[in-house]
């Protein structure tokens, strides 16, 4: 269980002068749902296509199931891919699409039909085998693509933005289904996405990528709550940034000062190697709250409300505070029925010490 199913060492890829991937090291565990998350152009799709064999690294090594993959074409690798546009063969019906990879095995007709049937049932498409490949809805196409890849029993299933073509409702439904399917079949899934909610909701671990490098690899909670850098924090939902000074440090603690929060002491995090001097603190908007007249909080910041945006389940307040160029974003759940706040009014924003994250610059 402990040997990784995929092991990537020092992989780089250059397109002319452009570096798409810069010295990537990554291990993916057997049976894991792993996501590559990042903005477009960060190299996540390039990395996925290299694992699948559609592209060769300029340098470095990719091992799958402890075998080097150098020079092996996609049809020689224990991987299968769900393509972004699903790549359903338009001249074949659903059953022939799903059974496409089985034809090589020269199964007898009954066996072939049984396996296709099983694969169709698994993705909830039983009875649609005779439907033409060109007459399917987006969700159906996605299911056919999944069934077609899973029927090959790959060691690793690669998914290239598989949900981006679907509308929101269907996308959320498919997120759950994909997760359930992955648990049921136990195959390692590697998902490429630019949608942080997709990555957070489905994955066991997420790798966040920027400009051809991996910025952080961690489980969703860690990525969200303890982002390694300002970039990671910013990409995964809203984050307030506060300028601070590290004034003293020892093996366990850091003492900081910030005009907004006053002096604070934070526990030192593993691997945080910054010395004294300027630093950035991050606070998620939902970890801030607007205090009523009689409420108090460990840290309180006074400011002026100047904007609010209503999203249904939450309202986002913008609070201008002295000493910070950016207003603080405060997300308030609309369940408490709190006071109606008018723009221009003075408000007190409260937070706990645990809401503060010290970010690498």
């Amino acid at each position, binding site marked *: 269980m402990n040997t990784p199913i995929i092991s990537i060492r020092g992989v780089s890829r250059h397109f002319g002068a452009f570096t798409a991937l810069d010295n990537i090291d990554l291990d993916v565990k057997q049976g894991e749902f792993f996501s590559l998350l990042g903005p477009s152009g960060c190299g996540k799709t390039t990395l996925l296509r290299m694992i*699948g064999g*559609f592209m060769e690294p300029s340098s470095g090594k990719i091992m799958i199931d402890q075998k080097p993959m150098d020079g092996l*074409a*996609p*049809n020689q690798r224990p*991987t*299968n*891919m769900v*393509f*972004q*546009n699903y*790549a359903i*063969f*338009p*001249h*074949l019906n659903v059953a*022939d699409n799903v059974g*496409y*990879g089985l*034809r*090589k095995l020269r199964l007898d007709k009954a066996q072939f039909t049984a396996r296709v049937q099983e694969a169709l049932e698994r993705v909830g498409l039983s009875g649609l085998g005779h439907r033409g490949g060109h007459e399917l809805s987006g969700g159906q196409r996605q299911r056919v693509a999944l069934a*077609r*890849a899973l029927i*090959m029993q790959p060691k690793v299933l690669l998914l290239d933005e598989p949900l981006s073509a679907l509308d929101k409702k269907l996308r959320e439904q498919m997120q759950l289904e994909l997760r359930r399917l992955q648990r049921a079949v136990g195959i390692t899934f590697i998902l490429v996405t630019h949608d942080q909610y997709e990555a957070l909701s489905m994955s066991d671990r997420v790798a966040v990528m920027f400009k051809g490098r991996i910025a952080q690899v961690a489980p969703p909670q860690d990525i969200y709550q303890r982002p390694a850098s300002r970039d990671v924090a910013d990409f995964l939902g809203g984050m307030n940034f506060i300028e601070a000074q590290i004034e003293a440090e020892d093996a366990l603690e850091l003492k900081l000062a910030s005009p907004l929060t006053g002096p604070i002491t934070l526990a030192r995090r593993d691997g945080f190697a910054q010395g004294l001097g300027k630093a950035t603190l991050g606070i998620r908007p939902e970890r801030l709250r607007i205090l009523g007249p009689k409420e108090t909080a460990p840290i309180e910041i006074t400011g002026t409300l100047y904007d609010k945006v209503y999203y249904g389940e939450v309202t986002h307040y913008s609070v201008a505070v002295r000493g910070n160029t950016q207003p603080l974003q405060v997300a308030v759940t609309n369940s408490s029925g709190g006071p109606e706040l008018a723009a221009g009014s003075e408000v007190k924003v409260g937070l706990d010490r645990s809401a503060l994250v010290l970010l690498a610059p």
Partner: protein
Amino acid sequence: MGVIEGEGGSALAKLGNIKLSEAARGLALAMPPLAYTLLLLAVPILAVIYLSFTAREPDADGNMVMSFANYVRVWTDPLYLHLLARSVGISVIVAVITVVLAYPIAYFIAFESGKWRHLWILLITVPFWTSYLLRVLSWKIALGQSGAINSILLWTGLIATPFEGLLYNIGAVVTVLAHSYAVFAILPIYVSLVRLDRSLLEAATDLGDGAVRRFVRITLPLTQRGVVGALMVVMIPTAGDYVTPVLIGGKDGIMIANQIQAQFGKANNWPLGAALSVSTMLTIGFAALAILVLARKAGRLAR
């Protein structure tokens, strides 16, 4: 359907306000070329069909006499049947050879030529900037007894005496026609290949296909329209070609069009020429239909 709005303004403005239905506007746009086609294509064809049912000589009063005699002659005379069979045979062979040769070229331009794609397309059309007649005549020079091919072979010492069989036979006709129509086969195949979604090819490879299996299972079935289009575009006009057979074909390379030309010309038997034309059209029509049906059947085999 037209609704005229407003009362003021000039008559022209009123005319501009007439709202035609989408279909009516489309028809209005298509009208000039449609009229042109009807006048220059449909009318002559109908005239030829009419002519083919008339007798060569008018009756005593000078009236046209309707008759099936021309068709009886065409379909019973071994000479015409032989020419018809040879023409259709040559056209099918030329179409198949041209398409087989054109496919790799189209494939190369569509997939491998990169940024030079448009240059390649241009280069392929360059020979067609000169007249057809000139190209056929240059083939005559190339294939002749003391032509380019024989000269080179003699010069290199590969042969001691020049080949005589390069010119004036069916083989020469097929060679020249296949070259003449190459571009018409390359273009439709190229278009269908360019339109082919690359991710389908990647998916086929991902699902275990090697290059050959993938070509047979995905590339060929999905470019079938281009291939069938190319077959038609080559086959139909070559069956009626008469320049190449006259210049290159010799005695054994004569085709039906030469006979039609003779009937309208020297023999001065227009009704028979017309019957030959109509018979050729029908035969080629059936051959085309047969190819379509076969292609469709073959397409269903792809899995």
